[in-house]
């Protein structure tokens, strides 16, 4: 039993035994077209490394045992330099590393040049969540993609550097504020995979996780269709809640009464609110609508006028859904 365990460990360490979904001791499942090539090169370098590592360690152990210091006995005569030996262990590693570089660069070329017919999704990274805009304008907090179709991500960040990293697809690209970042992949197996932020971006850097849902052939379009008109399919309150989470409102407004950058929205509807300019107002549909479109117009007392305008980013039916959601936040059915 120990022998099989050891054998499995050794072969696993050398990475040669991928399981059914392509994941092995070293690598996560291979779910994109480039994963195969990356894992092959990983194993190629691993083989070289294990060989040289064993060469060094075994030689070291043999020398230590064979030439152990014995009382009063000094080392035998041996050469202090040998040009031929020096050349061999310079040239051979040089050839190997050139080979590694070439494979690495070829793989990189495939990874960095998206095919022209790629399906384009816009990605928006901001402190601490991802949002994905599909070509028909629908925005979701998860990345849904059709299987076996090249997907091109055009990414932007609103604040600091983030990095979109999908281990299963072997794809990673930093999203630097002030520029577009581009990445592409083609998923080969339906399923759900993790999408991490790989560049440190602050408090909840480790919670900035989204999911990539790869739909089987034909199912993506139906999903997109249904999800896009979520206003019709979902109840207004659910649609409002979804918008509240996906459009970044929850970054600054809490729904459980706790203070954040913006006022908490627990029981906001009908509440009398005193404003920064001293006047007071009872919160109704118009005030919510005005606060969404021109947030700086009437700011609640004690808060900074930092809310960005959603003019042109939220359609009227969407604003109505959000208002319904706020009405449901009357404290009776407290949100999670």
């Amino acid at each position, binding site marked *: 039993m120990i022998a099989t365990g050891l054998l499995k460990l050794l072969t696993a360490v050398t990475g040669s035994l991928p399981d059914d979904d392509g994941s092995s001791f070293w690598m996560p499942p291979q779910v994109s077209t480039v994963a195969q090539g990356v894992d092959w090169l990983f194993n190629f370098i691993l083989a070289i490394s294990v060989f040289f590592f064993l060469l*060094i360690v075994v030689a070291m152990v043999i*020398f230590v045992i064979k030439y152990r210091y014995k009382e009063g006995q000094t080392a035998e005569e041996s050469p202090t330099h040998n040009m031929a030996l020096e050349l061999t262990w310079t040239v051979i590693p040089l050839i190997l590393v050139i080979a590694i570089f070439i494979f690495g660069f070829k793989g990189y070329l495939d990874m960095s040049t998206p095919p022209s017919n790629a399906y384009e999704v816009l990605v928006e990274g901001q402190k601490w969540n991802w949002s994905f805009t599909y070509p028909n304008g629908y925005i979701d907090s998860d990345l849904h993609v059709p299987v076996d179709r090249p997907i091109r991500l055009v990414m932007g960040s609103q604040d600091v550097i983030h990095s979109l990293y999908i281990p299963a697809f072997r794809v990673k690209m930093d999203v630097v504020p002030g520029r577009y970042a581009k990445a592409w992949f083609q998923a080969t197996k339906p399923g759900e995979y993790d999408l991490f932020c790989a560049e440190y971006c*602050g408090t909840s850097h480790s919670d900035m996780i989204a999911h990539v849902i790869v739909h089987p052939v034909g199912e993506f379009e139906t999903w997109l269709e249904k999800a896009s008109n979520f206003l019709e399919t979902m109840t207004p309150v659910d649609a409002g809640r979804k918008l509240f989470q996906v459009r970044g409102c929850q970054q600054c407004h809490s729904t459980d009464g706790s203070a954040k950058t913006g006022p908490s929205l627990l029981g906001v509807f009908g509440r009398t609110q005193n404003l920064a300019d001293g006047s007071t107002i009872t919160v109704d549909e118009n005030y919510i609508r005005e606060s969404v479109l021109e947030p700086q117009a009437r700011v609640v007392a004690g808060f900074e006028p930092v809310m960005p305008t959603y003019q042109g980013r939220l359609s009227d039916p969407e604003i109505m859904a959000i208002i319904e959601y706020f009405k449901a936040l009357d404290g009776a059915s407290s949100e999670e």
Partner: protein
Amino acid sequence: MAVDTLAADGAAVGNPNRANYLNTGSGVLSWLFTLDHKRIGVMYLVAITTSFFLGGVFALLVRTELLTSGPTIMTADAYNKMFTLHGAVMIFLFIIPGIPAALGNFVLPLMLGAKDVALPRLNLTSFWFWMIGAVFAVSSIIIGAVDTGWTFYTPYSTTTGTAVISMTLGVFILGFSSIFTGLNFIVTIHKMRPEGMTWFKMPLFLWGLYSTAIIQVLATPILGITLLLLVAERALGVGIFDPTLGGDPVLFQHFFWFYSHPAVYIMILPAMGIISELVAVFSGKHIFGYKFIAWSSIAIALLSFLVWGHHMFTSGQSGITNMIFSALTFSVAIPSAVKVFNWLSTMYKGSIRLLTPMLYVLSFLFLFAIGGLTGLFLGALSVDIHLHDTYFVVAHFHYVMFGGTVIAFLGGLHYWWPKMFGRMYSERWGQVSALLIFVGFNLTFFTQFVMGSHGMPRRYYNYVEEFTTLHQASTVGSYVLALGFFIMAGYLIHSLFRGKPAPANPWGSVTLEWETSSPPVAHNFDHDFLAGDPYDLKSLKYDPATQGWVRKDPQSIILSEGGAH
């Protein structure tokens, strides 16, 4: 005053309470304002070991937090500050000054048979800059510890509310301390070599320090200007790095890594110098391929300036630059491989004594081999896209920095301990802690290779369930590591007071620092030297009376009074 140094009466028995550099002056001021390179070396040693323990505590807190995926002992913000402080303290306060300032300051003039470094006042200034820089850096903990990571990437570092300016000013001052040490060593090696010590008769530790000094002098100023620009960006808003003002965060990464990659060679080159010394002495044999080892140090120092872009493969660097940096990165791997093979050949047909320093040499070869080879994965472009900013990178640089520099530093510390303090340490406890450190280290960091290649991102406070067992194994490993260090601290401090008095040459080495008593007299030597081959171990014989080694012909290396000048 007739001081009985070695030359006068052959193998002087170790006698710690005889007049030496430790007990000449009295009182704290004689230490804090000393110009004696040996005292400055000892003060640096105390300073960097304290920073090492401080950094180690931060490491243990980080590892303990990662025992479970959710919050374990601290909040997310506290965790971010903890790993930033671990990185910053370990790098800027411990490993960059580390070997050159502590061991180098002590040993370099002795190895040259000189009375002191060329610019003693500059040496003391370097120490004081370290102290002031450390105060700035550590005080940032109190006024809102930095949470940007030791890399200070903008625009996060220009928008976070934590004390980035205090930390960056601290590192700015520490940079000058490093420049002054490097500058001092270059001038000393150029101008103060003894008679007969040509460049290729110099001990390889000095080659290591010389190539390190080249990098310290040529790379650290760029760190200085980078930090100055970062402070200006935060305080005035000059718009070089901050995208809201039209700046470019990737330009900051170019600035930062232009220093920080050569800096990792500032860390490893002195370590390689120590290993060259130790492997020859404890194999009882002349070093193999002296010229190749010497030239590969210089090659590494120069090539290190060409490869910084491999830290930025996924950061938005253009494709062509990625390609160029990936190709150049592989050129740096060759000299390191040449060195490892030369050390192995030195052990061939030697008479190997498995004393503590040699144990550290063996674990250096083992760990640095893994560290170096995993660099190949990160140099290959397509694999790096997957591995960048994951725990694979964390494991790689710990294998090279800890497995390489710290292990070699410990080997060097034990090797020169008798010379520095005139006392022998307990060999048995030395081997116990060396084993514990080796096992603990591998358990801590090999698991991180596996996590990293499976996609575990760096600097994560909370991780997905899949990685829980590996994180727990890694944390247990870090506790074993900590245990090893506490044992070491114990027996080394014990040896300071009750260690066996050390003979002048306990290990049987031919380099000149063993030609004076242990600990050395304040002015090091009473005569000039005619230096011979630094690895001609045949010219020594063991003297059982003093349990030390003596030269068969002591007069051969002494320059006669009226010597040719």
